[in-house]
Each structure stands twice: as C-alpha cells, then as structure tokens.
C-alpha cells in the first residue's frame, strides 16, 4: 500500500507540472489547504458566524468601546484597510481614534511606542508583514527593551502591532513572507499567530490587554476563508499556551496559522492511508511558546514533525526541534523533522512547490514512521 502511495505521490507532482503546460489549464484560484473551523467554544453566550476579518473587526470595536484611551492607526485603516479589518471604525469612533498614517513603517512603530509609553493603547497595523522590516529597529531595540532599560519606570505594553503574513496563493516575494522567527529572537516581545476567526478575536483582545508589546501575525489567506462561530462577547485566548487540536498517539504534528489546517488534513490522510493517528498541535503563541505541551505530546508519541511556511534555516521550527530533543531525548523514536518552505526567497510562480503542503507533510510522516 505504501509503495503504491509513493508512486502516486511522485506522479502527483509530475501531473501538476504537465497540467500547467497544457493549453487547457484553467486559471482557478485554489487554496493549498482546507479550512477546519474551530469548535464552538464552551464559553457561554451568543455566537455568530464570522470570517476572520469580521472577527478582527469585532475585537477592535470592543477594544475601542472598552477603553477610551485606545487608538488605531496604519496605512489606509481609516477606509477599512486593505483587508477590511478596520471597516467602519472611523465612522463609529471618529478620526481622532482611527486614522491613516503616511507610508512609513518605522514611523508607525516608533509613534506607537511613544503612545504606549504614555499609557495609550496603540493598535498599529503594518499593511503587510513583509513591510515590517523598516520598523524592525523600533520594535526590537525600542519596544522590546523599554521596561528593562528603564528599570521598570516605563513599558510599552500598550502596543499591539497587527500584520498580515503568509502565503495567499499569488503574493510573490513581498506579500507572502512569514517573519515570525526574526522577532522570536527578541526577549521582551510577544508574538502570536491565529489559525482562524475565533482565535483571531481572542488573541487580538489578549494582545491589546497584555502588558507587553505584542505582534499578531494574521495569515492573510484566512481573512475570508476562515469562518468560525465566534462569541460576540469579549473573551481572551491566553498568550503562551498551545492547543491540541486533534488528539493522537503515534506522531505529533506542530504548526501555527494556516499550516494547522494543512496538518489536520494530513492527520486525516495518515489515518486513512497508513492507519496511524497523529496528534495535531496549534502552537498559537510563538513567543513565549508552550514547550510543556509540545514536550508532553512528544513523550507520548515519540515522533515530532514541525511544519511552517518560512524557510527552514533558523525558522522557528529549529527552536522547537532543539528543545524537544533536549527535553525528550530518551522518548524519541526518530529524529525531529521539519517540513518548511525552502531556503529560497518566497517564489512568485512556484508558490505551490515552495509551501510545505499536505503531500510534503504526509511524506515526512511516512518517513518518520519508517525510521
């Protein structure tokens, strides 16, 4: 059965290549994953079917309602933003609280840090995570270190930076990157990545309340595709805690953002084709990350695969792999594996070959089982 599958896997790529050259090629936008909605949370109260941008809009509305000392700013946010997350907020809360900035990311971050130092909740949007690098210095050298270097006199906890990240099907070099690992190297910051609407709202509200500067990377492909039953009330999802999305006992699959949905599909595929159960973990929080939960699962299954869209070398998977082998060495049945984007710039036309899609993840599960 395995060998059959192997040939099928091998020819899948070939077929894809051939089909791209044929004249009948259709120009259909298809995502590389299937969305798995989050289960209805146990919290009591009304819920509503919302996609991720609507859920974020809800969260921002609540934040502005609850705290009169909170503002939202970024490029074109007054019009609703390119991904519609800030729709109608200016109309409702006024141009003093929801306003456009010039196109200057370093300025946006620095300005937000200043606001936060004074105690205003500054919710900044960087239009694409790929544009965050001019703000890198401000976030790494200013925001992250304010409390430490002022001996606790000032902090930057009121700063929340939202940035759309990840593959979107056609984003090319500068609209697709996942820069979480760059920031994960910075003590003082907190970084989260939601996997859908329900998580986006809860995490964003947590970030806004969190007394440390937070960056929330929102996988942009999920803005419209991720539809969950989202509670209407204010709720938070704890930063620093991962979640077991699917229980299993033979292989642990770790991912975050869009990749969680890829891994859930892989778990189904593995169950069906190899009759093996996988445990899928959504890391949710990159910094700090839930080593305890991941290691607990690793000890149970003995096999860990980490998948992320960013390139492999020094990707956040490396940190997880290192920790798992240090903490769970004697429990492991096979070396920890990483399935990631290649160590190359995010390609424009080769996106589908770059992504750690379900076939590559499936192959990794097959290999780790054979080790």
């Amino acid at each position, binding site marked *: 059965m395995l060998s059959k599958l192997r040939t099928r896997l091998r020819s899948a790529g070939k077929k894809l290549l051939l089909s791209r050259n044929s004249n009948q090629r259709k*120009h259909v936008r298809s995502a590389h994953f299937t969305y798995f909605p989050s289960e209805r949370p146990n919290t009591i109260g009304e819920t509503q079917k919302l996609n991720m941008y609507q859920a974020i809009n809800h969260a921002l509305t609540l934040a502005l309602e609850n705290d009169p000392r909170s503002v939202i700013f970024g490029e074109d946010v007054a*019009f609703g933003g390119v991904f519609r997350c800030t729709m109608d907020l200016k109309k409702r809360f006024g141009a003093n609280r929801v306003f*456009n900035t010039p196109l200057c990311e370093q300025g946006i971050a620095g300005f937000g840090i200043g606001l936060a130092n004074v105690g205003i909740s500054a919710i900044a949007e960087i239009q694409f995570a790929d544009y965050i690098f001019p703000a890198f210095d401000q976030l790494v050298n200013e925001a992250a270190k304010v409390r430490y270097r002022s001996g606790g006199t000032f902090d930057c906890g009121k700063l929340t930076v939202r940035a759309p990240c990840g593959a979107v099907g056609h984003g090319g070099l500068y609209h697709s990157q996942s820069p979480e690992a760059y920031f994960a190297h910075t003590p003082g910051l907190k970084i989260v990545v939601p996997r859908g609407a329900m998580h986006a709202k809860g995490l964003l509200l947590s970030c806004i309340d969190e007394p440390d500067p937070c960056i929330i990377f929102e996988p942009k492909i999920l803005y419209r595709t991720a539809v969950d039953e989202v509670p209407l009330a204010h709720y938070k999802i704890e930063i620093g805690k991962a979640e077991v999305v699917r229980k299993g006992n033979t292989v642990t699959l770790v991912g975050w953002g869009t990749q969680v949905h890829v891994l859930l599909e892989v778990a189904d595929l593995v169950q069906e084709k190899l009759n093996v159960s996988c445990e899928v973990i959504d890391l949710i929080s990159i910094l700090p990350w839930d080593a305890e939960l991941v290691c607990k699962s690793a000890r149970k299954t003995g096999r860990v695969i980490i998948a992320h869209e960013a390139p492999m070398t020094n990707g956040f998977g490396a940190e997880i792999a290192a920790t798992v082998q240090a903490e769970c060495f004697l429990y492991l049945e096979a070396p920890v594996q990483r399935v990631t984007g*290649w160590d190359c710039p995010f390609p424009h036309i080769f996106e589908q070959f770059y992504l750690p899609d379900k076939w*590559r993840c499936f192959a*990794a599960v097959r290999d780790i089982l054979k080790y």
Partner: protein
Amino acid sequence: MIPSCIRNVAAQSSRRNMASFFFSKKSNYATEASFETKPYRLHKLNHGPSTQVTVTRDDAIELFKKLHTIRRIETAAGNLYKEKIIRGFCHLYSGQEACAVGMKAAMRPQDAVITAYRAHGWTYLMGIEPFGVFAELTGRQGGNAKGKGGSMHMYAKNFYGGNGIVGAQVPLGVGIAFAQKYINNGGVCLALYGDGAANQGQVFEVYNMAKLWDVPCIFVCENNGYGMGTSVERAAASTDYYTRGDYVPGIWIDGMDVLAVREATKFAIEHCTSGKGPIIMETMTYRYSGHSMSDPGTSYRTREEVQEVRQTRDPLTSFKERILNANLVTADEIKTIEGEIRKSVDDAVKAAKNDKEIPLSELTADIYTTCLENEIRNTTPFNPLSHARLGPAVNA
C-alpha cells in the same frame, strides 16, 4: 475631496501653442514646433528649465508612439489580470505615461533609472519589448526576469527595477548614482518614488547623503495625488514635494506634459553633471486606475474627478492635439500609428499567453553565486534541492 493641487493644475490646463512652425518645402507638415509649458516652480535654484520647448516632427512621433504603447500595454495588462492570467500584484501606470516618456527622452545612454512597483512602462522604455513585459507579468520563461519576479520586479540594462517595498528603491538610486560618479562615466541616476513613499524616513536619509557627497542623483517624486488610498493632503505636512529636500534644489513640473518633463530632465541632468550634486523633480501627475488591481480607485475620490483629469489633462490626448494642431503629424498618420501599436501589443499578449513557464529546477536557481553546499536545504539537511546558477548578471 479633490486635492487642491490637482484642482489648481486643472484650472490652468489650457495650453498655448506657440506658432513657430517651419514648413518643409516638400510636404505640408511642419518639421519642428515650439510650445510653452506651464511655469515650473523652483526651490533653491536661480533659474529653471526653459518654458519654451521645441520638438521636431521625428521626435514628436517617437514620443507619441511611446506614450501610446505604454497606455496599450497597461490596458492589456489590466485585461489579463481580469482574465486571471496575471496573478498577484499589478500596478498600472495609465495617466502617468508622460513622466517616464519625458525622462527617458532626455536620458543619455550612460544614465540609469530605478523605480518602484509601477514599472511596466519603464521596462518597455528601457529596451524590453512588450512581449518581455507581458511574459514577465504572466510568469513565463520569455519574461525579462524569466517570470520569477512578476509585475513589480522587471529589469533591463541601466534599469535597476521594479521594487516592491515603498521607498526602499530611493537609497539604492543614490548608491547607483554614487557608483557612476566613482567610475566617472558621466552618468546620473534617476531615483523615482511616489508621493506616498516621499514620507518614508529613508528618503530623507539619502537626501542628506546625496547632498553631503554631491552625488549625481535626480530624485523624482511622481506625485499622482494619492498614496494608495490617502490623498497627499492627508498624508503630508508639506505637499510641495520639490522643496522637501530642504538643502537639495528642486523643480516642480507639470507631469502630464511630456515636453515639460523632457526639458526639466535635461536641465536636471545638466545640474547633476556640472558637479552641483543632487536635485529633486516633482512631476505632478495622476493615475486613472486604483493603486493596485485590488483597489477599484473610487472609494477615496470621485468618478468625476477621474473623468475631469481624463478630459482636461490626459498626457496622451493633450500631446496628440498639440502635435496635430502644430501640423507636425496628420490625423491619418496618427491613426496608422495607433493601429500598428494596437496590433503589436495584441500580438505580444498572444505570444506571452502561449509562452512556456520555466522549469521547476529554477525554484532554487540564482539564490547565491555559488552555493557553498551546491544545494539548497530541503525538508531535512540531507534531502536537498540542487542550486543552479544560470548566467552572469547584467552588472557582472
């Protein structure tokens, strides 16, 4: 809603044709004509370019062909995008053609240019046939970056791209210009950016460096009135972009007048090469499309505003009228030229659609000159993809 600067420009948009024709004996058309440009505005300059500009019949036809070709390319690109044959990000130049065409007409072979993401027109002007542009847009092997860059990343000799990050190309332009000074080839570099990018901090950093070291860089702020969805007044404390270099001299130019842009660029090149260092040109222009294909371009400005510009300031129509009125060309000639361009652009689109995509091996090609391990890491360090180097770069 209409930014006041645009309104001002529209108000003074009547153009005077100076009747200084020289009729050739053989035919009925003029061989040369002069026109009066709108007044330039100057910053820290004692005198500016001449407002009296002359164009020969041959030059006029050449300029018209280029303006028209870029318009056709952009229209075709917009259609290809709607057909979903172009994917990803795509920013159209329609409305701004006179800026690029005017500058290119003044550039000498040793001069370089670098621009942002509205790069299709420049790519064509810098020597890439429309096929190369379309093949790049559609991700095919005949693309001038082999289909690997797409809309925002096109290159040619002396054309350093096509850059995707707002404002990031401006410091590069100063570096390019410094290199030209260093190797002493007499060239200048035109570093283009929009009114939105003009607010990026790095632009101010290199104003300083360029003036400090008298680098032959022409900063060109193409002011189309809107940085994405935000009008200039809402984004900039001073919308006089030609003065924003403080100690760097500047000129304001009607960017819808190809001859004014050409004249001012000649002046700017002269300024730079005479050792006076950098200069800023602000070309006042307008874009008809949205910022990118995902922006309908109507939520932050009225349709009437766009229509008004199309009717009163269009760089193509106004230039066509001028050269027709000056008898430099006949209506029949214009018609023939337009027909030829339409056909050649349509053919290029067809050819690009039928071109092949590059092989998958190029996914990991050209990341390094020589990869230390000859391979690019794959899912595990022991399962690599081979790295390839396909050829020397233009600057090698």
